């Protein structure tokens, strides 16, 4: 695979190597659904931080609150209680307009499925967050991202003309092209065969290593989690464990012990 080269960044602040700075933090984050007897506590006073320029995986059984955690951290869902910050911005206090701008300018998203607008070409999908803000892409950076993801001959194809792996690479390129503070990836390999899945994870890994991109990924797949620098385990709305330098086997064992 191509070696990813370090981007020429004017504003290098958000893309420096990991030094322990937190790209996003949550303090006492609580999220409940419903009221009274039917109330469900999805997240219960969670304290958590995602280190900059690292790939953090969030794992847990279904219903553990891992997706809710990501939605709340990414400003996609309102928190019930607690303080969520992206960098220095308290997003729990932002209006819908401010949240929209935050997502557009400072966050990147990769979803499990339905990542792309079906009527737009691959290139238009990649540039969509920029276009929504009326911004022009930095041509060098755009070329670099597209070449790195091996999409240069797929730019004018519609999503339905692309394989699942190619579609997910377009989504990765879209997340990278704005050089966001954090990329949130929700089961990014959930719909892919294992070869395409590892390809996509390899790109994310190298975006962290070579470009010092911060990535937070929700997954239930131990081998996907093994690409991370740190795995955070969730159960019943609580953080129940952390694993540095994970391997598939270590992650698998930890999950077994959590489910026991």
């Amino acid at each position, binding site marked *: 695979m191509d070696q990813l080269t370090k981007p020429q960044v004017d504003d290098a602040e958000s893309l420096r190597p990991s030094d322990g700075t937190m790209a996003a933090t949550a303090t006492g984050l609580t999220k409940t659904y419903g009221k009274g007897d039917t109330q469900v506590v999805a997240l219960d006073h969670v304290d958590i931080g995602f280190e900059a320029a690292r790939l953090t995986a969030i794992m847990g059984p279904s219903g553990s609150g891992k997706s809710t955690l990501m939605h709340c951290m990414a400003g*996609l869902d309102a928190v019930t209680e607690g303080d969520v910050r992206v960098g220095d911005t308290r997003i729990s206090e932002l209006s819908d307009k401010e949240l929209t701008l935050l997502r557009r300018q400072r966050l990147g998203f990769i*979803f499990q499925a*339905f990542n792309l607008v079906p009527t*737009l070409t691959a290139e238009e999908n990649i540039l969509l967050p920029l*276009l*929504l803000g009326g911004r022009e892409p930095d041509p060098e950076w755009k070329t670099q991202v597209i070449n790195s993801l091996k999409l240069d001959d797929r730019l004018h194809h519609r999503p339905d003309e692309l394989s699942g792996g190619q579609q997910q690479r377009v989504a990765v390129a879209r997340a990278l092209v704005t050089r966001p503070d954090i990329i949130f990836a*929700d089961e990014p390999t959930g719909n892919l065969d294992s070869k395409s899945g590892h390809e996509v994870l390899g790109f994310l890994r190298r975006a962290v290593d070579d470009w010092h991109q911060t990535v937070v990924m929700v997954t239930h797949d131990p081998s996907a989690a093994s690409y991370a620098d740190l795995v955070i385990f969730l159960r019943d709305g609580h953080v129940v464990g952390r694993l540095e330098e994970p391997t598939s086997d270590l992650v698998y064992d930890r999950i077994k012990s959590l489910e026991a």
Partner: protein
Amino acid sequence: MRSMLRLSLRNLAGNRLRFILTTFAILVGVSFVVASFVLTDGLIRTFDELVEDANADVDVEVRARSEFDEIDFTLRPIDEALIDVVAEVEGVEEIWPTASSTKILPVKANGEPIKTSLAPAFSGNWVDSSISPLTIVEGEAPDEPSEFVIDETTADREGFVVGEVYDVIGSDGSEPFTLVGISRFGEENALGGAVLSSFTLDELQRLDGSEGLITVIDVAAPDVERDVLVDRLTAVLPDDVEAVDISVVVEEAQSDISDIIGIFGNILLAFALVAVFVSTFIISNTFNILLGQRVRQLALLRALGASAAQVRFSAIFEALVVGVVASVVGLGGGVALALGLRGLMNTLGFDMPSMDIILAPRTIVVAAVVGIGVTLFASLSPARRAATVPPVAAMRAGFRFGSGEGTRRTIIAIILSVPGVAAMGYGLFASSDSTALKLAGLGAGAVLIFVAVSMFAPLFSSPSASFLGAPLEHVPG
């Protein structure tokens, strides 16, 4: 916003069949509205020209003085002795005394009377006058008591042959007459399906039972000023007979014809408004279904940084494009529909003269207002709902729009529908007031009822939407 415009256009282009179906629903309403205007405008102009042509060489008409300002269709007859009086007036070069009757009907060779269910049969006296619009195209004019001529359309349709003898029914039973010629009214014999037979003046009066009486005397006096001629005639005419500048007579006739065509046009327009009303409802529901299908895409856009305003705007812009296309195509469709309706009328036996296609500025404005306005209006509520899709729905399957505050909606809907029904009823059934006022009532009523229905819509939108939307479910979206 430009990216959202592009996205809207792509969404439309990416689902051509769906776009065509959506556009078609509005187009039907627009076409009906345009057709009713084009048809009435065309007919009014045509009949206006016919009236003008028929009186082109006439300067003044002598007729019974009406007791009312408004001349009704049947004038009181005047004494035929006035023909000589008028002819003596200084400057008068040509006179065209006319008597007409609706009591006379020729019978076909097989003994059946001519069918006159579609338009009246009327008879007149033949006058060899250069100012009459009638000409003989075959045979000769009647100058013996037992002779008559008939118009060429009727002759062709009913099989009348010059030289044959036919029974003619008059007010005192039937008697035989010889058909001596075929007449033509104007250039096309466009009588609107009416049957026109002509006799000598004495025979006409006898058959009608109105001996000694005529209807009007038209006068040509090219060398005299019209007001001078009117004065000279007035001086010699009895008090209950007047001389009128022909332009006044033409205007009166045109206004009468406009009123009749206007009634016909209003009936068409009422159909059109029903079509518009129905299409608005369909469109509003369709937009809601389409948005339901696109929830994940909308949520994705929101997650990627599209503002609520951008999402709302893109939905409205899509509707705008649909509305513009529907208006433009609807204009063409309306013209085609008008021509089709005229063809249908000809087939049914109303002989319409070759009609001008008049696309008045008013017609274009109304087409645009109806097409664009209705579509935009119908898209407002779905667009507002589209903007409420939470970005997190991009990652959750099964997000559904809520139906909103049901009770409040119902109350407002009922409050709006009462004056809506009243206004529409006034527009449709009120008899005395002006046409414009009735149309305004009809329009305002339709709008109010639409708003009311669309507010009710969420309450029964699931069954009706799945019914109306059934064909769309299979359209890839």
